[in-house]
């Protein structure tokens, strides 16, 4: 599903990712860990062609990401749902409208959108909060909103960039339960985190990045 082939990404002269080789299979759940600055976010940004690799090849399904002509980028991005580290919610739109964005983009009708968003709000435990604006929700609730938005258009891959980043432990477990459920429904999930407690508790594959290099890749399944 995802393949990195000797990928190097440099910002200036220092590499954020250094000779990364890895393969992630369909329907896998993978933790991407490592300290801040290890290159986790860069890894995700490369996958959705928000950045271009300095060297190497990246494949998502049968798409050669770096070679993709720019008019095909939307096609790639529709395959991948992302929970951004900085959320990227639109503050002047309601929760409902935020979750509806990917559905609007793929051209769903208003009634289809309504049905799907209600379903998603229920799934992430936010039923009834659709009319609120982002500033009226807690951090944990906002994380759920971005998860709902990320999976709205049924992507094959879900990338979650530190979705429990600044949440208390109880709320974090709620998020983990949700991501596991999404994975069980058949979505490939890659989650970046440096919360080792969570990584240890879930028996999943763990890839450790340090200064842009893969230092460990433990398959636990």
């Amino acid at each position, binding site marked *: 599903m995802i393949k990195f082939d000797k990928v190097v990404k440099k910002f200036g002269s220092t590499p954020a990712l250094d000779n990364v080789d890895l393969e992630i299979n369909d329907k896998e759940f993978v933790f991407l860990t490592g300290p801040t600055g290890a290159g986790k976010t860069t890894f995700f940004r490369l996958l959705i062609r928000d950045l271009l690799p300095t060297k190497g090849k990246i494949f998502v399904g049968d798409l050669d990401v770096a070679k993709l002509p720019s*008019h095909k980028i939307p096609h790639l991005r529709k395959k991948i749902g992302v929970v951004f580290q900085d959320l990227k919610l639109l503050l002047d739109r309601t929760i409902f409208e935020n979750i509806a964005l990917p559905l609007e983009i793929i051209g769903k009708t208003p009634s289809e959108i309504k049905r799907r968003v209600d379903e998603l709000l229920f799934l992430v435990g936010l039923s009834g909060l659709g009319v609120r604006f982002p500033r009226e929700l807690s951090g944990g609730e906002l994380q759920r909103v971005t998860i709902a938005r990320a999976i709205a258009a049924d992507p094959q891959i879900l990338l979650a960039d530190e979705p429990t980043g600044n949440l208390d432990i109880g709320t974090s477990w709620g998020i983990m339960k949700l991501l596991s459920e999404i994975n069980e429904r058949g979505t490939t999930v890659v989650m970046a985190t440096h919360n080792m407690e969570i990584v240890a508790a879930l028996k999943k594959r763990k890839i450790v990045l340090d200064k842009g290099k893969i230092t460990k890749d433990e398959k636990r399944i």
Partner: protein
Amino acid sequence: MKSAFNATWRHIRRSPYQAAAAIITMTSTFLVVMMFALIFLGSTLLLSHLESLPQVTAFFRDEAKQENIDALKQQLEASGKAASFKFVSKDEALNIYREQNKNDKLLLELVTAEILPASLEVSALKVGDLPELAEIMKQSSIVEDVVFARDVVDKLAKFIEGTRVITTALAILLFVSLVFTTLFIISLRVFVHKDEIETMRLLGAGRWKIFWPFLLEGIFYGVFSATFSGIVSFFVTPLVASFYQDIFLGVLTLPIPVVVYLIVVGSGILLGILASFIGGYIAVNRYIKA
């Protein structure tokens, strides 16, 4: 398309002051451009009318025969510079004289057809060509005298030329200013929504999906401002025009047909759409990374 309309409407509704400022700025620019265009068109019509007015008149000797006169007329026509001819025979001249002086018996008795000369009044396509036509007339042996007010003609020619240069320059300047105003406003609107654009892109929205709401917004401002200023200038231009005429032209009226208004408003709308398109495209592209 419908969702683009919704997005446009949301942009406008959620920042009404900016939208109002955009509309006011564009409307006032449009208003000036339109009034100028109208006065420009009106005075062009008027000036070309005026240009054909000044005449040079040849008074014929008594012995001039009709065929000689016709020959002269043909010669003038052949120059390609004459706009119109008016031949006044001795009898017609007398009639005109009588009409003009019908209240004065003494003057009427003094004059017979014999002493009034026949004449040919010629107007030129271009004022500047009148001296040349006068020269042709003077060289004819049947012509007694040639009369034309050279000073008036020269001054009028200069005035017409000057007016054209100035109005053309101003019209171009205002046109450019209108395009830049639209560009600026749309860029501002795009800038305000740059986070939204980035997010939409990352969620997989295509270029056009993002572009449409801004384009529609620009088109909305363009159409609204053009129509509104069109209506206003329909009422205001005649006032300005009459002021303009009073200074320069006295009795003549500035003829602006309704069709001209429609053309000006129509081109204003097209211009608004075009400027919005260019402005929107440039602005959106600046915030979309390839």
